[in-house]
């Protein structure tokens, strides 16, 4: 499976992580699912990290914000295809917490490592399964 996005979208979600450093950034990916399950991103939407108690190692998107974003997506014939967040001073790899708190099966979870304020690696993982059987699968990012 692949996640396709433009250079501009890729740059922006990484830049978001740099701007919020040393805190985690978060956002939503809007676009379309292809027949084979691949995703094409058509827009990125920055969100506010609601974990003000621990923003340097936790993120949470207010569901109310997701309701608004979902409405926006439907108006443009788009869907929520995934989410992104950053890992300040941590690798671009999903954590146990990332997996435990992931519930959007088939969607992409994009993680950017931000080291000393600079974005380094960006990786994408697709969520499969549910409950005790859920897992993240590595997903290729295709820059259009």
């Amino acid at each position, binding site marked *: 499976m692949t996640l396709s996005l433009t250079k501009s979208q890729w740059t922006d979600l990484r830049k978001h992580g740099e701007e919020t450093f040393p805190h985690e950034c978060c956002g939503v990916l809007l676009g379309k699912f292809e027949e084979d399950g691949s995703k094409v991103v058509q827009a990125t939407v920055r969100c506010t990290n609601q974990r003000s108690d621990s923003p340097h190692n936790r*993120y949470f998107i207010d569901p109310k914000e997701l309701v608004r974003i979902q409405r926006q997506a439907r108006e443009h014939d788009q869907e929520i295809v995934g989410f992104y*967040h950053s890992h300040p001073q941590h690798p671009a790899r999903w954590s146990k917490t990332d997996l435990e708190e992931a519930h959007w099966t088939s969607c992409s979870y994009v993680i950017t490592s931000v080291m000393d304020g600079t974005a380094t690696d960006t990786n994408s993982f697709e969520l499969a399964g549910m409950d005790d059987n859920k897992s993240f699968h590595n997903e290729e990012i295709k820059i259009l």
Partner: protein
Amino acid sequence: MKILIPTPLRPYAGKQASVEIPAGSVDEVLRELTSRYPDLRQQLFSDDGKLRRFVNLYVNDEDIRYLQNENTPVGPNDTLSIIPSVAGGCLN
């Protein structure tokens, strides 16, 4: 009224992005939804019959937890959004 089905639940709802259900309380609307699509029940409710903790329900723009929970009325022109939580973080 309309129920908006999020991406991860569409395979259990006939691949539909939204479903039209007669107006009623949130509880009645969800009962009708899971009656039509029985596979959805396990996705929305735990074994004890309670809504799974990561499932958020909004009537229009309001979280039902701040309204009347499952007794919240949903009118014919209202929208019920099912929103699984989005959270995580680098700390294990």
